[in-house]
Structures are given as C-alpha cells and as structure tokens.
C-alpha cells in the first residue's frame, strides 16, 4: 500500500481520503480481478479564521489488478488564488502544479483574432527561465485547450493560462493538462468537453506503467502522454518520446482511456464538493 507521505494539504478545509481495501495489512497473494473498493471516509473539519473559497479533495486508488491502470494518489484544489479569475492546484503523487486563468480580458490589437478568443499559455519551471522544453509543452496544452474551449463566444478577447511547476516527480505534462482543465472550469469559461491527461511509460521489459514517477520515466524506453476528452474518450493530443511498436501505442491508448475514467469521476466529485455549500 502506498503510504500517504509526501502529500501536503495547502488549506485547512474538508478533506476526504478514500482508500481501497484490496490490499490488507499482511499483503495478499493473488489480486482479485474484479474491483471491490471499500470506501472509508475521514472527515476532519478544521475551522479557520478567514473563510476562503478553496476546497481540497484527494483520492487514492491503489488498485493492482492487472486489467486496471494504477494511478498515483491525486488531489486538487480550486479557487485558491485571489487575483486570477480561475485557479487550481493539481497534485499527482509528488508532482504538483499550480494553474491560473485570466479571461476573457482585453487583448492587444496585434494579437486579436476577429472571431475567436486568443489563448495564451505560459509555463514557468521551478528554477530558471522558460526554455524550449517549456515552449513545446505550452504548445501541447494550448492545442488541447483550444479544442475544448468554445472560443467563438468571446471574439477579440484574450485568455491567459499560467502554469507553475511546484514539484516535478514525473508525468508533468499530464499534471499540467489536468490542472489546466480544472482552472478553466473554475474560471467559468464555456467548454464543449473536459479533458484529462494520462502519461504511460514502457519500460525495458515491455510493461506499460501508467503515471510513472521520475525514476520510472528515466529508465523507460518510451514515454507517451495523451489528452483524452470526456464525451467520447477520444485522443485530443498525444506527445511521445522514444521507440515503440504500433501495437504498444494502441495498448497505451487503451490503458489511458481507462485511466481517464477515474480522473473524470474525480473532477465530478471535486466540483460537487465545491458547490455543496451553496446547494
């Protein structure tokens, strides 16, 4: 059972941790192929002197059945920054990313597009200035966001998405995609679908590992990131590095589509929790 160490809560609000009970304390020999998840919820309500509107929601799915992909524990928080119109923080294992969205705002005449909004993605690494690698990732995120946003509803305006790396422990691009999606939802921008980012790595034995950490990424022979949309589970964006066969690519896409189900369910639960106070 993966320990919960390494996960820090940014704010003191309702936290719910969901643990699966497939692995008992002594360890089991054969994993059952059917999923039976026993949810144990711990609610700790901590009072804070200032009410703020951020809601923290975490989820652990530590399933080791061979048919289901394993994702590290992930958590997110919305509306935590006061200046941007929408903001979110997404944590996958130890990888943590902060996203802020501004828009629809004024745009410079040189950058305006007459019939749609101009989306600009800015990525800040943890140290140093943004370089070519960040520019490549910005383009991946921008293509995905433009495909899912209804930008024709805000012509001649600008949407700015700022992504900041807080800690990088593998699967960074998929963490960017997930936090971007939550931040765009938080800002209230009209979207035609949601998207989720999933990273797969193929190690030297040919095994497919989902959501690899930095050590696994380094030893892998191929690394692929897919952005999956929520309506039909199709691939919106793919970014790959390394060598792999066509069959392996298809296998990774199938695994990513299955993993994206969990991420979309997590989006739904966290948004539901966010609106639970006003219901």
């Amino acid at each position, binding site marked *: 059972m993966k320990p919960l160490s390494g996960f820090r809560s940014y704010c003191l609000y309702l936290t719910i941790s969901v643990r699966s009970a497939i692995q008992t304390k002594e360890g089991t020999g054969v994993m059952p192929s059917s999923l039976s998840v026993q949810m144990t919820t711990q609610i700790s309500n901590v009072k804070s002197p*200032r*009410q*703020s*509107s951020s809601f923290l929601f975490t989820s652990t799915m530590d399933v080791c059945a061979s048919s289901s992909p394993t994702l590290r524990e992930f958590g997110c928080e919305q*509306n935590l920054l006061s200046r941007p*119109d*929408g903001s979110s923080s997404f944590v996958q294992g130890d990888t943590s990313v902060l996203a802020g969205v*501004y*828009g*629809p*705002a*004024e*745009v410079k005449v040189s950058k305006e597009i007459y019939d749609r909004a101009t989306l600009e993605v800015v990525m800040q690494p943890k140290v140093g200035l943004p370089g070519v690698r960040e520019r490549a990732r910005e383009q991946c995120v921008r293509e995905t966001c433009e495909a*899912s946003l*209804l930008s024709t*509803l*805000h*012509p*001649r*305006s*600008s949407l700015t998405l700022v992504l900041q790396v807080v800690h990088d422990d593998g699967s960074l691009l998929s963490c960017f995609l997930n936090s971007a999606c939550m931040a765009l*939802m938080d*800002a*209230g*921008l*009209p*979207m*035609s*679908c*949601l998207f989720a980012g999933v990273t797969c790595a193929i190690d030297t034995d040919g095994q497919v590992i989902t959501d690899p950490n930095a050590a696994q990424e380094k030893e892998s022979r191929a690394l692929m990131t897919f952005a999956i*949309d*929520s*309506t039909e589970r199709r691939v919106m964006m793919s970014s790959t590095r390394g060598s792999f066969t066509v069959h392996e690519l298809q296998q990774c896409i199938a695994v990513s589509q299955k993993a994206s189900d969990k991420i979309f369910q997590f*989006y*739904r639960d966290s*948004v*539901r929790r966010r*609106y639970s*106070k*006003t*219901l």
Partner: protein
Amino acid sequence: MLIIVSTWFVYLFVILSYFYVIIHVVYKVGDVLLPGDVFSFQMPESITDSKPEKVVCGPGLRRNGDEVLVCKSGILRHKQPNLYWIDSQQRRYVPGKGESVIGIITAKSGDIFKVDVGGSEQASLSYLAFEGATKRNRPNVQVGDLVYSQFIIANKDMEPELVCIDSCGRANGMGVFGAGGLLFKVSLGLVRRLLAPQSEIAKDLEKMFPFEIVVGMNGRVWVKSKTIQQTLIVANLLESCENMTAQQRQTLFRRVADGSI
C-alpha cells in the same frame, strides 16, 4: 435608513431558440453538472404519447444540433414552467444587454466617454445619454468618476454601449455617484444573491446599521456609511460572506452587530 440603489434582479437569459423536442431530462434539478454533459436529446419518433414541450435555455446551456449541452460547471436550476439554467460561480464579468453595472470613466474622446466595466472591452457612454443633457448643456462627468448605467448594446460582436437614462428619458437612479464611500469587487454569484427579490443577505445587512450601497451586476459594489469604520465593516462582511452557509453568515453578522462600536 437603508437606501439600496439598484434595479430589479435581471438574469440575462439568452433564449437560444424555441424548439419542439420531447424533453428527456437526464439530470435532476439541483445536480452539479460539468461541461460536456448532455442535458436533453431528441427521443425517437416511436414515443408519441408525450406532448412536445418548449424549453428556454439560460446561461450555461447551449444547443448543439439536436442536443442541449452543458458548457459551464455548476448547479442545474429550474423555474416554472420551462426555464432551465446553470448556476455557476464566476469572477469575470461578460457584458449582457439590460444589465446595470458600475463603471469607471477612463477617457473622454469626442462625443463619448470610455468606461471600464470589467469586461474584455471598454464600453462607450455618450454625452447625451444623461438626464437633461443637450449639446450645449454637457453633463459634469470627469475621468475617474463612478457611473451607474445600463447596457443597451452588449453582444460578443460589437463594442458595448451604456446609457444613464431609461427608455422614457429619466435617470431612474442612474448617473454619476460616489462622493466618498468605498468601491470593491465581489464574485458575480454574490451580486446575484444580493439583488434577488427576497435576498436574505440584504435583509441581514439591513439590521446592522444605516448605510448606502450600490450594487453593479459586474461584481462591483460601492458602500458608504457615516464613519469610515462602518464602511469598512460592511465591505469586509460582504467580501467574506461569499462562501458561508446561511447560518454561518447570520452568526457572523450577529457577532459583529453585538461588538460593533
């Protein structure tokens, strides 16, 4: 004495179209929906016993061919007989026709003022759109003034336009204001709750102490009270009661009222 200078609560409904489909609502009213969820779709021709209904879709719902899709995350609301919309929390204002907003004059150019309303573009306000204004009798408006005005043109394709008179030519509470007082920004959801006809927040605030308040649908609120301290108290209370349940808000107001100077 509490003076609320605001118009009726107007929710801008974009009536997309009246279309005759047999509504099969997949989600219940009060559910939290996410972008991409299908709200309703056309049933096959075999079901003929249910009568076709007209549906009016408000903010957050869009028609996509035969389907109505959700495009913002929020709570599904319903008003009789056939009105559906998504209640979402947002901070950035998008101009809508007929909404009354607080604007800040940023420039005078030619015959119009440029007004900052917090949207993606600055709105224009003509000199003649004030009560009693003529070409010779210009209104006394300076750069930096606050104006309470209404949109007459506000769509995504054109520059938004404001006026400070109603259709009969009277000011009706609109125009320049704001000598003294404090202007601050809250979220759009809180503003809608304040302007609702039976607003509980407004009723709780009335019991505190007398003050003057102007609420704009673009999230800007202007407050003025007898002393600066009371003004700041009201401003802080409004900013903090965004995410409180009704009970928490009432306890907070009571605590402040008991301990206030």
